[in-house]
């Protein structure tokens, strides 16, 4: 059965049809070309012809011209539209004329850079020119670093390495910085929020170092389709940027299916789980032989799905090894094997986290299946773009979970055929971030008194650092004067830089993977069942001090789910914002949040019933951040309906809805904020809900929410009230079993006492 037949088959499957809320068809688009530019180097031209490229796509042509005119550009194109050529072409053109020209390519992840190196090395080899490309990242062996520093024409790295390994040691990179003509930033839409605010400051530092060495590079960026690519890039670079978005690449016909799993419990409004539903759909897809990529939202889900699908493959008398998982935590070598297996079709189904969403070269597959909404429309498009060989038909299926955001999207598919409303924002003047980079910049080069790093306040900030004895001001300059290496104290991604290594004690103490320190207490605590390549491992011991988890293979009928406890302490109230006739009070301030994993539940595979528990003893992880909180009126307690436990159920319900709906109002990930309900807050003894930024120092999310809080609270009330379920469901106040029987009604009642409408 080919893909067209599969699509027909699905269209005629009435069971399947019933689940669809929308079947969108995007027509095929033909290529739009322009001839090679007149000034293109003849050697380059013949190389391109050799590679079967006779003309440029319109966006490649425009990018080439704009870059040749010296402009900073951002090229916006979908997946697989030849965007690498958009920047390789002008860069190589220049390098053929000028042997000293250098370029820096930045990719958001290490994995992405590998393909790029292959691509430019291929170009250089075909040109028979000594244009050297090197990857420079944490894995680069020390003995070749010296060569890279002096002889690398194109240095491929990531922002983290630029920040920690290159800029602070700029004197070792004179050749690069003196001759730096181009800085390529790929997948720039990935840099929003915290990461983007950091990147923008790293760019400030980069430009400063370039000025010192007398260079003034041009920036060439690429972005997926979002609403404000130009604005985002201009904010990050603090430069005027030319937008190139006339995509000329062809695309095949695309079917985009919105699939809502059936309600299994009308009373509870519960829908069938994404994992089970995906398995059902795959039962139809696998026998067709179509190559499928499944995106799952968590590492654990990836492993669960691989396990289920391998069992399914066995039932279908198929080689289970044709089904593979792919996620962070697999070793690079393992990943390369999987990528290759996909390209040469030895692997039929890959289940991945968003690790494969960005441009890692795995070829184009037939079907992209999203097991749950990936959290943003831009991501959904990128994941969908993994399916569809050029000019041939492709199929995308979005399977919604019961989460409020998924349910909202599945009911509003118009976002996918109208303009994408999502805007990406950064705040490069977020004080903790800005200060971190101001320190790094001071370490790299002393600031002059009149120098500008950020508009208006550079001098005040530097004076502050001088008072704090971080800098020393003398002779009109600020000098670094601490005995530390400031870049080591700043992680661009707010993930702890340390990892916990996972060691299989029964296989020659082989390292099978790693987990970041912050996730380690939940993923690999002692006695956890850890899934790796869908094999179950039992964690014998988590040696916290050594950052090592010792595991061995097991085959049991359950997995574990960590129990994590959160504590929240108000450190300082910075703002009170309630109006006089508001029956509740709202605050914004500084809080300390500590998280600790105290135990785990054993959950039976397939039935998901709880079959046991255990305790673990691990240290707390603490962050200080900003929070918004509402203290609800005392009258609640005088109403006989509101017993302590009913207030608790209501608050939990409100928290559940807020947690999930906030990303629609403030561009962020569901996991960027946390919502914590407390029946009696230790701070005030009142029923309270806290919303805090899950980022050290805060990133302005809860602050923004503070200004539009009534709007969001009212939306939550509306959403909960109009939800068709009985006593609460995952789409509104959370499953009734967890929220209690009164979660929904109590939540609505509490929200109504707030008199939200003016």
């Amino acid at each position, binding site marked *: 059965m080919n893909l067209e037949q599969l699509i027909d088959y699905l269209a005629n499957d009435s069971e399947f049809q019933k689940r669809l809320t929308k079947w969108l068809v995007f027509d095929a688009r033909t290529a739009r070309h322009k001839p090679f530019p007149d000034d293109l180097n003849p050697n380059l031209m013949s190389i391109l012809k050799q590679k079967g490229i006779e003309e440029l796509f319109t966006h490649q042509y425009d990018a080439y011209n704009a870059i040749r005119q010296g402009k900073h550009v951002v090229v916006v194109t979908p997946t697989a539209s030849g965007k690498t050529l958009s920047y390789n072409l002008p860069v190589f053109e220049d390098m053929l004329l000028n042997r000293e020209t250098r370029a820096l390519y930045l990719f958001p992840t290490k994995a992405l850079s590998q393909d790029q190196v292959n691509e430019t090395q291929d170009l250089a080899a075909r040109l028979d020119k000594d244009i050297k490309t090197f990857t420079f990242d944490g894995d680069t062996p020390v003995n070749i670093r010296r060569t890279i520093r002096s002889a690398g024409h194109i240095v491929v790295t990531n922002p983290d390495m630029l920040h920690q390994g290159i800029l602070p040691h700029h004197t070792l990179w004179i050749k690069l910085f003196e001759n730096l003509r181009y800085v390529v930033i790929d997948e720039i839409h990935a840099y929003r929020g915290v990461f983007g605010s950091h990147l923008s400051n790293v760019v400030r530092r980069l430009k400063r170092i370039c000025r010192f060495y007398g260079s003034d590079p041009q920036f060439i960026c690429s972005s997926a389709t979002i609403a404000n690519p130009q604005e985002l890039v201009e904010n990050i670079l603090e430069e005027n940027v030319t937008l190139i978005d006339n995509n000329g690449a062809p695309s095949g016909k695309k079917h985009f299916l919105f699939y809502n799993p059936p309600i299994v419990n009308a009373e509870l409004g519960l829908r069938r789980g994404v994992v089970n539903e995906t398995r059902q759909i795959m039962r139809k897809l696998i026998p067709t032989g179509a190559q499928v990529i499944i995106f799952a939202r968590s590492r654990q889900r990836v492993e669960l799905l691989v396990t289920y699908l391998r069992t399914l493959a066995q039932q279908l008398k198929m080689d289970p090894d044709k089904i593979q998982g792919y996620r962070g935590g697999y070793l690079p070598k393992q990943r390369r094997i999987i990528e290759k297996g996909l390209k040469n079709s030895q692997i039929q189904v890959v289940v991945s986290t968003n690790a494969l969403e960005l441009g890692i070269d795995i070829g184009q597959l037939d079907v992209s299946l999203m097991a749950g909404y990936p959290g943003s429309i831009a991501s959904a498009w990128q994941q969908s773009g993994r399916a569809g060989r050029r000019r041939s038909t492709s199929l995308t299926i979005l399977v919604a979970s019961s989460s409020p955001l998924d349910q909202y999207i599945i009911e509003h598919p118009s976002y996918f055929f109208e303009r994408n409303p999502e805007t990406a924002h950064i705040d490069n003047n977020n004080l903790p971030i800005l200060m971190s980079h101001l320190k790094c910049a001071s370490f790299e*080069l002393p600031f002059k008194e009149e120098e500008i790093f950020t508009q208006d306040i550079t001098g005040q900030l530097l004076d502050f650092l001088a008072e704090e*004895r971080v800098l020393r001001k003398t002779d009109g300059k600020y000098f670094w004067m601490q005995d530390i290496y400031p870049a080591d104290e700043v992680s661009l991604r707010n993930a702890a830089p340390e990892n916990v290594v996972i060691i299989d004690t029964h296989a020659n103490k082989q390292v099978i993977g790693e987990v970041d320190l912050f996730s380690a207490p939940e993923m690999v605590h002692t006695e956890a069942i850890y899934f790796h390549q869908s094999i179950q491992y039992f964690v014998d011991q988590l040696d916290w001090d050594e950052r090592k988890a010792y595991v061995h293979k097991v085959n049991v009928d359950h997995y574990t789910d960590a129990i994590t406890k959160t504590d929240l302490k108000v450190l300082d109230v910075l703002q009170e914002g309630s109006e006089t006739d508001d029956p509740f009070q709202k605050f914004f301030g500084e809080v300390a949040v500590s998280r600790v994993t105290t135990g785990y539940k054993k959950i039976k595979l397939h039935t998901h019933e709880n079959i046991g528990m255990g305790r673990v003893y691990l240290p707390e992880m603490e962050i200080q951040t900003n929070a918004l909180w509402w203290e609800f009126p005392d009258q609640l307690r005088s109403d006989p309906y509101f017993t302590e436990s009913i207030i608790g159920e209501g608050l939990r319900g409100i928290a559940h809805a807020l947690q999930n709906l906030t990303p629609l109002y403030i561009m962020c990930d569901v996991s960027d904020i946390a919502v914590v309900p407390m029946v009696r807050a230790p701070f005030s003894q009142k029923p309270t809900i806290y919303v805090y930024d899950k980022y050290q120092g805060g990133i302005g999310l809860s602050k923004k929410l503070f200004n539009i809080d009534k709007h969001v609270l009212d939306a939550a009330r509306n959403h909960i009230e109009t939800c068709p379920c009985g006593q609460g469901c995952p789409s509104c106040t959370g499953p009734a079993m967890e929220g209690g029987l009164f979660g929904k009604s109590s939540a609505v009642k509490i929200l109504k006492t707030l008199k939200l409408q003016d």
Partner: protein
Amino acid sequence: MDIKDKLAYYSAYRKKPKNSKSDNVYSSLQALRDYFDGEFSEPSTSYLKISRKFSLFKEQNDSTIAIPFLSANKHKAAFNLKDCIFFDLETNGLAGGAGTFAFLLGFGYVEDGDLIVNQYFLPDYGREYSLYTQLLNMLNQYHTLISYNGKSYDFPLFKTRLILNHLPGEFNSLQHVDLLHIARRIWKRSLPACDLNSIETYVLQKERSEDIPGYLIPQAYMNFLQTGVIHDIIKIIEHNYHDIVSLAQLLLLFNRIEKEPNLLKDNQALFSLAQLAYKQNHQAYLNRFITEYEKHRDPNKTEQMLVWQSLLHKKRSEWVEAISLWENLIRSRKFGLFALEELAKYEEHVVKNYERALQLTTRAIHNVQTLNELHSTVFQDDALSRFLHRRRRLQGKLS
């Protein structure tokens, strides 16, 4: 919130600075000058120069330094002591990178049997340019730079400071001898660490009184900048001075050890040098060490040296010598298998006596299997599979 409030908020949960005394550093600087009888640079007082003399030789001494062996052939040619410049920096941090600043730069050279030590103290940041221009001119007069761990620390840092001051950072005519590398080659087995401090105590038998430990130096300089208190700066200047004196003494000591390795009374050190001789194919040296060991020292260690010696003979196809060594080693617990293997290789590949080679191999297999039975935990699987492989091949050749 305006930026002041934000900063107040930002600093609220950070460490509060201590109250600093007045920045009246200039008068302390004068006190420092007087203490060491130094001089300020003219006209801008950008640094303090201190010049001191240390008597290096008691009697007339040959001033040629030759350390090809100890430097593992990195410095093949002999050089003149007069052309050496000793150097050591004290910095405001130990992390490295562009933000690390050297506030005290010590240089030493030899003149008429004396070591002249010139130290340059920078009383603040931002005053490097004139000093570094002068140092560049000064360095051009020398041919060999001598340091301790300078290759990976002091010298790159020095270059970084030059680049930051827009001065040329290339030194093509200067060879750099890092004494740490030599010290490691000699004493890596004898000492837990080969830092200059340990070497001074253990080798030069010097004790420093009132020395400031290296890790306190950055903080001491910060304190000086804030308070002008010179107590610790005096200690640092002394520390740096003694470092440079030790550099010169060590170089002379290495020069003597190169000629007369038996000066080393330390068996481990001598053993390390024997290994170095082996790695450098230096038969004459190796023989000296073996004789020395057999006569006076630990005979157990001699076996390893004999192994090295036999391998050197093998490299030169001096088969008679090699075979006699291997035959003696057959009964060694540690090197018996090695000897059998080498002999079997010789019989198989050199004289092509496959019968003999097979006998030796069978004997080795028998030995390994016996050993494995005796110590069931330490399997010599690698050795065993190598010998089994050899036996199969030999049997093939014979059939």
